[in-house]
């Protein structure tokens, strides 16, 4: 009844790769087949979707440890409704998508493997309407679709642990070991950010995903344009600016990619009223 699924030990495998194990076939450490694990982590054999979801959960628990959910159930449900609809237009509609608004005044949004997306309260305050939110969430959904964070973790640049086998029970309750093994790599990844090319790709895809969902496709460009109005030395954007290309270069890239081809999707919705109503509880007191 507690059938166990052995989840790839990212740490072990990458260590094996780094140590230059020759493909590792047949190599055994105790009763662990290092060869098989090496193949998984080195990308020869992809991490399965259930494994990805469990890893994402471990990473998200750490991200939520930095800032918990903001106490506004209506807003949480609203962002899930918008986010889920946006994610349905992607190539991975059937992931267990979760969207959360954390309680931070910083301006940021992040995604974790398996379909977890966190957007800060501060970000929602600077967005104008639902099409901008859809664009931001579309950008995060794109990261998950393209497995940007998963690949970054897999690349082995974040592995500090050597021998740990992570086990996950079939009930879906993940072991403490997995969460613990992922704390360091998670922090390193989200403090360092992804490759710039991943961010540009997520911008291009986010625009398309929001357009597919029926939104004004310029929601994401408008939100990036807004980010450009904030002084880079403002603490609210320090982490976002450290981990992303500058707003100016993101807009420049989007301008080239979108050209005039997207004009046919100009008729999308912005849903400003619905958005402004949804965020009224988190507006700063003076704004209410």
């Amino acid at each position, binding site marked *: 009844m507690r059938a166990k699924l052995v989840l790839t030990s990212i740490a072990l495998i990458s260590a094996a790769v780094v140590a230059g194990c020759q493909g590792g076939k047949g190599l055994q450490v105790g009763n662990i087949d290092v060869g098989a694990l090496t193949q998984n982590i080195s990308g020869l054999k992809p991490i399965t979707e259930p494994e990805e979801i469990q890893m994402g959960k471990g990473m998200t628990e750490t991200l939520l440890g930095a800032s918990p959910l903001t106490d506004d159930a209506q807003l949480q449900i609203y962002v899930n409704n918008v986010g889920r609809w946006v994610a349905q237009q992607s190539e991975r509609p059937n992931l267990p998508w979760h*969207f959360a608004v954390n309680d931070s005044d910083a301006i940021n949004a992040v995604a974790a493997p398996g379909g977890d997306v966190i957007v800060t309260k501060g970000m929602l305050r600077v967005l104008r309407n639902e099409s901008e939110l859809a664009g931001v969430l579309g950008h995060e959904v794109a990261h998950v679709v393209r497995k940007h964070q998963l690949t970054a973790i897999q690349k082995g640049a974040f592995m500090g642990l050597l021998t740990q086998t992570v086990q996950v029970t079939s009930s879906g309750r993940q072991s403490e070991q997995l969460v613990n093994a992922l704390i360091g790599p998670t922090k390193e990844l989200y403090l360092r950010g992804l490759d710039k090319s991943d961010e540009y790709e997520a911008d291009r895809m986010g625009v398309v995903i929001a357009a597919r969902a029926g939104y004004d496709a310029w929601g994401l460009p408008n939100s990036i344009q807004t980010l450009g109005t904030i002084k880079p030395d403002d603490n609210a954007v320090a982490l976002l600016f450290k981990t992303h290309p500058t707003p100016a270069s993101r807009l420049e890239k989007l301008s080239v990619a979108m050209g005039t081809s997207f004009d046919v999707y100009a008729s999308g919705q912005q849903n400003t009223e619905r958005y402004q109503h949804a965020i009224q509880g988190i507006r*700063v007191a003076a704004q209410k």
Partner: protein
Amino acid sequence: MRTLRWGLLVPLFLWAFASIAAEMGYVLRTTDLKAKPFLDADTIAKLPEKTQVEVVTRQGPWMQVKVKDNDKDRVGFVRMLQVRLNVTGNALAGASTGSTATTVATAVTRPASSSPTVTTGVRGFDEVGLKNAKPAPAEFDKMAGFAVSAEQAQQYARNGQLAPRSVPYYSEDGKPLKDVK
């Protein structure tokens, strides 16, 4: 009591209106100011590089802007991706609802005495907060509790007049990619 409340609210409303500062920006390069939001619409003027514009509305790829032309204002449309907004130094200036500085806002909404995060910094989701983060499994469960089904999301989309469309992805140089959903 009632009178007193209104007495407080009226100045607040006035303040709110006054604080919605116009969004200002400039065109990156020489840009056509169009009479209507279409590529083939009449060109009202050619705006030289760095011309200051005031944002009136946003409409897909177009931004309706007001431009000072000697003493009178001209209103027309420019491509939104040709506009950069001025740096205001204010994290909330882009929001349509006001312009209170974030730091002030934090003080207003979260009195230090009642804030559980005040010891680790008011922003939480920043470099320090992330470095010090400990896994919060209970928060994950809470998040999962707010998840909605595909059907619920679809209904919510319908309520918002959102109709799904088929749109291909595009390459960096603007070519449609083949794997169209």
